[in-house]
């Protein structure tokens, strides 16, 4: 593997800037037959909450034009099962591990963050203040600058390891939330989580999803995500991990040129189990064709005001 894709992110040395998006890669155990997760810059595993969560009743997903709606509802086995059953396998994975942390209260976030830090199974935490599919917590914090700041501040005080705040696009001005997170000590931002959407089943005349609304992801949301990364990159000086509809290297490059230091792949991986290795190869090809010494050279290229974080 070439060094061209090596990416530094808040002190972590990543092999390349490509990660899985939380909630689309299980606990890194689902795609092993198709590729070794060690090829990725980092594995972002699904949300962990203090107690197990059963998630929402079915139907939970629906395909939409060039996208999909999901309302899984943060189904996960809980912190104890994570520490006992999942963490040991993550330590052996051969690349950086980022654990997504979710909760209903600030104390929930702090509890999971502290436990994962003490356990030593992760290199960074992604703080999920943007899940649109649970009644309390999540988006309740992520939809205001004040709520986002409160979670960031509490988790920052609780742990020394890098924290990434995962932001919701379902807000009036995402840059305001981003700035609030930066001010309270966030090391990076993941953006964006899914866009709140809905389908109606015209046969039953009822919402299609049991949860009525769900999060829209996939190629359909990509231009929205690129725009938000671009706007935010001009406002903050912490790195951004860009995501939202990335299906190929060209999509990843759009995000990076808009100001993202790294990218995450979600829905595309669900649709094609070899999407992630394909994107890494595509970036390598691009860097070679463009004679780049480092892929970081293109970060923020489309973003004149960027205080480039490479």
């Amino acid at each position, binding site marked *: 593997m070439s060094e061209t894709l090596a990416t530094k992110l808040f002190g972590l040395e990543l092999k390349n800037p490509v990660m899985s998006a939380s*909630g*689309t*890669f*299980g606990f890194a*155990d*689902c*795609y092993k*037959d*198709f590729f070794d997760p060690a090829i990725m810059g980092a594995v972002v595993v699904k949300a962990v909450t203090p107690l*197990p969560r*059963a*998630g929402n*009743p*079915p*139907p*939970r*997903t*629906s*395909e939409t*034009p*060039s*996208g*999909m709606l*999901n309302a*899984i509802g943060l*189904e996960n086995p809980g912190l104890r099962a994570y520490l006992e059953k999942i963490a040991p396998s993550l330590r052996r994975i051969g690349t950086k591990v980022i654990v997504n942390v979710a909760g209903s209260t600030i104390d929930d976030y702090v509890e999971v963050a502290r436990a994962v830090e003490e356990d030593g199974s992760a290199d960074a935490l992604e703080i999920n203040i943007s899940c649109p599919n649970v009644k309390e917590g999540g988006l309740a914090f992520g939809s205001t600058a004040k709520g986002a700041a409160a979670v960031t501040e509490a988790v920052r005080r609780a742990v020394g390891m890098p924290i990434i705040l995962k932001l919701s696009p379902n807000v009036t001005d995402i840059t305001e939330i981003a700035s609030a997170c930066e001010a309270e000590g966030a090391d990076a931002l993941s953006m964006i989580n899914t866009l709140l959407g809905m389908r109606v089943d015209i046969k039953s005349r009822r919402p299609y999803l049991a949860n009525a609304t769900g999060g829209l992801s*996939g*190629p359909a949301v990509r231009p929205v995500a690129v725009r938000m990364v671009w706007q935010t990159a001009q406002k903050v000086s912490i790195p951004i991990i860009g995501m939202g509809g990335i299906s190929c290297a060209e999509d990843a490059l759009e995000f990076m040129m808009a100001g993202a230091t790294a990218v995450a792949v979600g*829905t595309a*991986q*669900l*649709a*094609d*189990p*070899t999407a992630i290795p394909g994107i890494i190869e595509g970036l390598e090809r691009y860097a070679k064709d463009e004679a780049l010494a480092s892929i970081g050279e293109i970060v923020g290229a489309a973003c004149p005001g960027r205080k480039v974080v490479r």
Partner: protein
Amino acid sequence: MSGMVYEEARLVGSADIAEGMKRMTFLAPGIARRARPGQFVMVSTEARGTLLARPLGVSGADPEDESLTLRFAVVGKGTSWLAERRNGDAVRMYGPLGHGFTTGAKDCVLIGGGTGLAPLFFLKEEIEREGGSALLLAGAKDRLCLMESDVLESGCVIATEDGSLGERGLVTGPLRRLTAGRRFDMAYACGPVPMLKAVKDACAQAGLPLEVSLETRMGCGVGACNGCTCDQAVKDGAWLKVCKDGPVFRAEEVLR
């Protein structure tokens, strides 16, 4: 041989097998060598605006000639796209996925309804290959909706709701009659949920162990997205994943 593979399968034959139903045979060496009855594949489509692959049950696999057979109903954009492929066309698919049927019992009865018959063709072949016997009971709304009716007419028991082929009524009619007079070792069923529930009752009464295959829409097919939960598969308050915990379950675990 275990594991999943992603491969470009080449279509080598297709046929209309009922109204709105297709049989397609592909050259798919990796999947054909690994597939067991009851497993499924995820088929990528290039239909406009679609994104996710489509889960289709394996209806036949021959490791010798490396062929994979799918039988399916054309219900939406993805399956319509697939149905329009011509011989020689390449179709991306990955699999085999999920837990299949447990074989090994000697005297078996297979109950299929509608598109649920698809995996039972493969199961029947496998049971017979292993030296067991497999009696297939096939149910459908009417003659036109019964897949492969000409094949099924010899050696299988057919029930149609309107009596246009076989006996009139639901497939549970002949099932109850047969299990009352004969001792089977194992039953397998695939079809609509009301049929599966009725089959479960009939098998419970006959003291006959039953495995059922459930169907649901899926996101990834490999257990990553947690999108394929269904009302019928719940264990200890947790949703089971149809893709990974199933699609074949012991009847007593599911269908409440």
